[in-house]
């Protein structure tokens, strides 16, 4: 709950840059994961899986970016999208790096760094989701008149 009227009223005129920044950091962490994956996985070349993986990662990052733009404008539904994307990042730990490690395609060290970057990405997306949900809900309730402040506090 904001401490005073101005801190919530200014949300009408300012974008949620913090939620946007968190989501973009999640995107960048995924980008690092993406680069590490292709840099260290030499067995991946010339496989059809490579194409699917590249397309998946590009679509993922596009959705993250578009969601980041939407949460910047306090669109609450996209905080749910970011939440889902963060869950996907956590889930991916148990799919590709794990399976690749078990198949001996990647080394233990590379697996560890891939997992770390996925966790970082997931955490940022989760934080962006929580932040945008909080701020958009707050603004919505304020605009609906459900949050009131003493008149003396207002301009």
């Amino acid at each position, binding site marked *: 709950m904001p401490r*005073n009227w*101005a*801190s919530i*009223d*200014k949300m*009408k*005129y*300012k974008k949620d840059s913090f939620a946007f920044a968190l989501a973009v950091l999640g995107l960048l962490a995924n980008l690092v994961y993406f680069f590490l994956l292709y840099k260290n996985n030499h067995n991946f070349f010339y496989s059809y899986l490579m194409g699917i993986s590249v397309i998946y990662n590009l679509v993922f990052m596009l959705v993250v970016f578009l969601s980041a733009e939407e949460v910047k404008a306090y669109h609450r539904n996209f905080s749910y999208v970011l939440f889902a994307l963060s869950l996907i990042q956590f889930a991916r730990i148990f799919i590709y790096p794990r399976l690749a490690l078990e198949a001996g395609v990647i080394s233990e060290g590379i697996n560890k760094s891939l997992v770390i970057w996925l966790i970082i990405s997931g955490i940022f997306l989760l934080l962006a989701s929580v932040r945008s949900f909080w701020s958009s809900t707050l603004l919505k309730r304020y605009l609906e008149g459900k949050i009131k402040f003493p008149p003396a506090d207002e*301009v």
Partner: protein
Amino acid sequence: MPKVEMQGLKKIYDNGVEAVHDFNLEIEEGEFVVLVGPSGCGKTTTLRMVAGLEDITSGRLIIDEKDVTTMPPKDRDIAFVFQNYALYQHMTVYQNMAFSLVLRRENSNLIHKKVLAAAEILGLTSHLNKKPKQLSGGERQRVAIGRAIVRDPKLFLFDEPLSNLDAKLRNAMRRELLLLHQKLQVTIIYVTHDQLEALTLADKIVCMSMGHVQQIGSPLELYYRPSNLFVASFIGLPPMNLFDVEVKPDRISSPHFEVPLDEERRRLLRDYVGKKVVLGVRPEDIYEHGEIAFRVTNNENLGQSTLVHGFARDQKLVCKFRRWTNYRPGDVIKIGFNMNRIHFFDKETTKAIR
């Protein structure tokens, strides 16, 4: 102590052009001062010197008892409103207005309150989320003014802020500026070449020509007691009628007409008997049914009054009658001058004879 003191300000550019000569002015707290004059007279240069955008060649500039002659612009705590608004096109109105405070790293809640208060004063509350390109010219200018207001500066400088607006909007904005000044009671220096703006807005007018101050005074003083021929011809719309006359002991005469002098004017002109002076008479100080024959060339009906152009023999004159007239070109009427309102100027010095 005056709020602003300009002592002998002079500006000489690198190419040797002397734009402002020995400019002296004192401005009191809350005063609305207008610098007026034709293009190239040095009024904007003077304003830019006050803002710190132009170096002062010589002289002193004192604001709030502090010599700021060499102080950088950012430290002078002055707000400048430009003719072309100078808004950031990629920012919203809110962001434009808040920008200077953000740069100062002020508390964001405080910034918000200041921006909303300024927007309320200027009627911009409903436009705060818009970009400048979505606004009309008048609204953009209000944003520029709002950006100045939120800073709460020591001094406001306006450089022809209404020049880019159409006539109707200019009138409306002029009234708004006047109300704003009454409400905020801030010190303003305003530059314009529009004498109507100068007369309606100013507490004090500084009339300039060729870099020289011609007269400083209230709008009424400049209008009714011009100190020289330049001020007499510049202030007033249509301008004052000016023509050479010869002073005789009991009258003034020209090849076109003769006008008898009352006792007061005879005393005034006693040193000029036998010499030529310049007679000035404002169009509204000419009345119908006088003694001077006047041949009408055309009428300009303005609604509540009519401007009648024509000749008194060969002397071109403009008269302003407070009624709708239907004189035809070629009509000859009789006119007279309101002797209490005529002005005399020394032909050599161009100064008013008082």
